């Protein structure tokens, strides 16, 4: 009788050992780990452009064409100036929409305005004075900027200087004329 009890205990111990063998490999199933990594980015300076000075042909006589030089060398006229700020040395693209004519406020009369292939300059030295071109691209076709490499400049500021020409007719109506010049700049991503 006593021997039978010992055998029963041994059997239970054997079961325990088997269960232990079963449990041990499963023990790792209870683990969990959590890690927190980071997503990081450095956003560069936003690009902006400001129409600093209007392209001004001054007083114009009927039948006499007037050219406004991009370097302010024509007396009585003022070159258009657009100031660009952004990330230093970043490449940008420039797109200009130029008017074909200037119009009176009422729209009753129009005056032809034109821009030739060297009427713009791009100064990337930080200088914004058309009369003191500091460096960059001296002659740019304002109708086709894609031919000119353009960047914000090492100092993060650059400028576009723009000249042009108006050709009033002999019977051009007197009064102020104006037209919009739209300049769009965008980072190229390089």
């Amino acid at each position, binding site marked *: 009788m006593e021997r039978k009890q010992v055998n029963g205990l041994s059997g239970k111990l054997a079961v325990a050992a088997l269960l232990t063998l079963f449990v041990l490999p499963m023990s790792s199933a209870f*683990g969990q780990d959590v890690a927190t990594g980071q*997503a*990081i980015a450095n956003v*560069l300076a936003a690009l902006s452009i400001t129409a600093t000075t209007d392209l001004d042909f001054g007083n114009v006589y009927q039948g006499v064409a007037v050219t406004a030089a991009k370097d302010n060398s024509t007396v009585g006229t003022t070159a258009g100036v657009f100031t660009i700020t952004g990330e230093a040395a970043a490449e940008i693209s420039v797109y200009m929409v130029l008017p074909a004519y200037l119009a009176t406020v009422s729209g009753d009369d129009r005056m032809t305005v034109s821009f030739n292939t060297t009427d713009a300059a791009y100064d990337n030295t930080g200088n914004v004075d058309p009369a003191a071109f500091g460096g960059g691209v001296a002659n740019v076709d304002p109708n086709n900027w894609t031919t000119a490499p353009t960047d914000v400049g090492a100092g993060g500021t650059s400028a576009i200087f723009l000249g042009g020409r108006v050709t009033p007719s002999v019977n051009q109506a007197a009064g102020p004329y104006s037209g919009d010049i739209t300049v769009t700049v965008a980072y190229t991503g390089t």
Partner: protein
Amino acid sequence: MRSIYIPMVLVILLMVCAGSGNAQTITINNDLSFGNVFPGIPKVVSKATAGSAAEFHVSGTAGNEVTIDFTLPTYMNLSGANMQMIFHTTDCAVDSSASPDQSNPGADNLNPWHTITYRLGSTGLTIWLGGTVVPKLIQTNGSYAASIVLTVAYTGS
């Protein structure tokens, strides 16, 4: 008395074994780094780009299956300024081989938004994560950051 002795031993064994298992450990090898970002120009970091993609390594019991769960941000932050982040459904990859290959992982194009189940290899498991940032045209400049939380757990199989 002996009849309750053995169950007690088993319970103790269970408790001891549960606490002494070979738990897995996550190591962050690399953060998800977008570098310089131009305002207005989205930037993508591929999960296959070494040094830029996030890389995690999971060590644990070889052959055991684990679940991988990400808690992903939807934007990065800089002093109250936010920048949108996007994680696509193919932005994750894993590799459990002895020599993990980021450019040719064991399992590619996994969805980090869903639970991923994979088995640990002899050297564990390497996880890569890519992503996209979408800066605004007038995004405030500076260093942005966001947390990526990774949870790994054994499935028991």
